[in-house]
């Protein structure tokens, strides 16, 4: 590597470096200047610095997004800079920003600088996870996210449930890391590579005969177990309710949104870029079912939807309810991964539905956690009883919660409906002649109907039942504004979903060419842009917003 290449790489990594500097800055500021201040004061000052810093990082990403046309690969796929990745990084940084805002002025610990520092380290992990296409980097980034989140979950050290949630999260996470590493080692051993694209190359054509398939199969299975823990898919979800309930609400929001987005992006990349050749098929059980990861993922999806939705019905704590609902949502997203594989479109060009869904899921969920935090910190807890009659005590927050719940349930015209619509449409379209995935889609729709019950149960608690405690619940203006903005976005994405999906489709049209950044970038080559009409990955929306 000569010096100009290093400069090129550093240029690609600018936002990550700024983020890293921000994390160090917050830690140092706290130690050097604010040690003697009161906790509230430190919280305010450091929180504001973090917010400003994150906004800056967000805009650097936005600049990169507008600036780039190509994909850059550093170190055999350890860091891949593309517009699609940048969009996800913007989403993750935006979610972190919201997390900081909703956690503002609700100090859970006296270690303010470390709280923000660890949170930023976890965001760094997510950012690196999103941009990695290499098994080693995926493992390191996942562990960076996990370790910081274990600590943050237990951060409210004075509270029993916080440390208990942290320990449970850690033990399950430890199992997941061990399975993941073992699985990755087998995938590496079977193919001889760790870079996802090289793995895909090793599984192509006549190369395939040389690969020990049973070993690869076990590797994929173990990796799915490991990643299944991270995305909280059943039956690996047992930690989720305890960690969500125990963790300080902003941290729970981060586990449920940012870390989940990043893990899903990693899973999607691993399966669709690295291992498409080992997919098998999940079509029409049992006649066209072939062994491969598609069938396994379909089974995990069915289990997640079933267990998530039915267990959510029995919950009486809002955070636990959101935990089980996120298990169910992981199931829906896995349906889409199976669908994309079955559609046979080469890797990333069929994924807009899944990306749209992940973004909407994260946005809605962080809004819901924001409301839970706002109400919970004032009403003294986050059980259902604390939310009773909230419509009279805080009409604004209750309205927002209503929007988020209905969106999660998938009621039109909110964003959640179109997320599910695109997802299920993509699954039906995957095999349009025989409708091979219809069984999976039908099951997912039935489960969505079940989910309506518990979302409405919470809504009923807030709107129908009378309040026991007539005092009003208010929250600070910053929180109100940001939650309002999220609510507005959920509404708008429901009214104009095609705008967002088109954006993802455009991104997927030219994910290539790719070159090693170690080599100076060649002059802009001609990109053969596939005609979008050839094989639409996602059908045009059923005229949700007719353009006249």
């Amino acid at each position, binding site marked *: 590597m000569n010096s100009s290449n290093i400069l090129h790489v550093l240029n690609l990594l600018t936002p990550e470096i700024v983020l890293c500097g921000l994390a160090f800055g917050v830690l140092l500021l706290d130690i050097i200047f604010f040690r003697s201040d009161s906790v509230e004061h430190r919280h305010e000052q450091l929180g504001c610095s973090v917010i400003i810093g994150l906004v800056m990082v967000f805009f650097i990403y936005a600049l990169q997004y507008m600036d780039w046309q190509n994909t850059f690969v550093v170190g055999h796929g350890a860091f891949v800079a593309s517009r699609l990745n940048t969009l996800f990084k913007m989403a993750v940084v935006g979610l972190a920003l919201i997390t900081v805002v909703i956690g503002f002025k609700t100090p859970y610990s006296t270690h303010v600088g470390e709280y923000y520092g660890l949170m930023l380290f976890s965001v760094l992990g997510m950012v690196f996870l999103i941009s990695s296409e290499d098994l080693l980097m995926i493992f390191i980034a996942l562990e960076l996210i996990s370790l910081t989140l274990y600590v943050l979950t237990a951060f409210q050290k004075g509270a029993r449930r916080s*440390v208990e949630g942290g320990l449970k999260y*850690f033990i399950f996470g*430890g199992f997941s890391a*061990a*399975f993941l590493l073992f699985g990755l080692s087998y995938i590496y*051993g079977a193919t001889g590579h760790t870079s996802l694209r090289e793995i895909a190359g090793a599984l192509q054509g006549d190369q395939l005969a040389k690969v020990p398939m049973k070993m690869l199969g076990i590797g994929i299975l173990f990796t799915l177990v490991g990643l299944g823990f991270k995305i909280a898919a059943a039956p690996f979800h047992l930690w989720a309710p305890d960690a969500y309930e125990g963790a300080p609400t902003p941290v729970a929001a981060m586990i449920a949104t940012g870390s989940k987005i990043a893990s899903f992006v990693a899973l999607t990349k691993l399966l669709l870029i690295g291992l498409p050749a080992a997919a098998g098929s999940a079509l029409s059980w049992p006649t066209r079912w072939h062994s491969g990861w598609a069938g396994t993922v379909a089974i995990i999806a069915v289990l997640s939807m079933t267990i998530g939705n039915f267990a959510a019905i029995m919950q009486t704590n809002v955070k636990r309810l959101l935990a089980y609902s996120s298990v169910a949502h992981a199931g829906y997203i896995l349906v889409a991964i199976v669908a994309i594989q079955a559609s046979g479109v080469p890797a990333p060009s069929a994924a807009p539905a899944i990306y749209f869904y992940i973004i909407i899921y994260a946005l809605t969920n962080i809004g819901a956690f924001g409301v839970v935090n706002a109400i919970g910190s004032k009403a003294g807890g986050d059980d259902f009883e604390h939310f009773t009659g909230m419509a009279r005590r805080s009409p604004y927050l209750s309205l927002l919660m209503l929007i988020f719940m209905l969106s999660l349930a998938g009621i039109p015209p909110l964003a959640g409906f179109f997320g599910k619509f695109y997802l299920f449409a993509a699954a039906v379209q995957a095999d349009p002649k025989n409708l091979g995935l219809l069984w999976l889609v039908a099951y997912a729709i039935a489960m969505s109907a079940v989910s309506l019950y518990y979302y409405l149960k919470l809504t009923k608690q807030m709107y129908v039942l009378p309040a026991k405690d007539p005092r009003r619940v208010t929250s600070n203006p910053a929180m109100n504004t940001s939650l309002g903005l999220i609510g507005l976005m959920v509404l708008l994405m429901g009214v104009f979903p095609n705008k967002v999906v088109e954006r993802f489709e455009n991104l997927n049209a030219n994910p290539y060419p790719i070159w090693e950044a170690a080599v100076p970038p060649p002059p802009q080559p001609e990109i053969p842009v596939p005609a979008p009409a050839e094989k639409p990955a996602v059908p045009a929306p059923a005229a949700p917003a007719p353009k006249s």
Partner: protein
Amino acid sequence: MPTLSDYLVLSAILFSIGLAGALTRRNTIIILVGLEMMLNAANINLVAFWHFLPPSPTGQMFALFAIAIAGAEAATGLALVIAVYRHYRSVNAEDISNLKG
């Protein structure tokens, strides 16, 4: 000469022993020990693959990073155990169950 299969069988057995330990023991510290054992079993795989596959530094590097991460994980886990012990005066998994559902 031991072959690649020999090393893989060895690591498979070590992984299973670690898993059994982590699943059957109640002491969270010993559960942690079991997890370390599972991670190390994966390291044997990585190094063995590195040795037997066509030359590339990948496997060894992977194992090196895995050791570092396993160390960080053990430290975090022990710190969590200490934090939990302060509340429950116990490190037994069964005693630590306030949250349920």
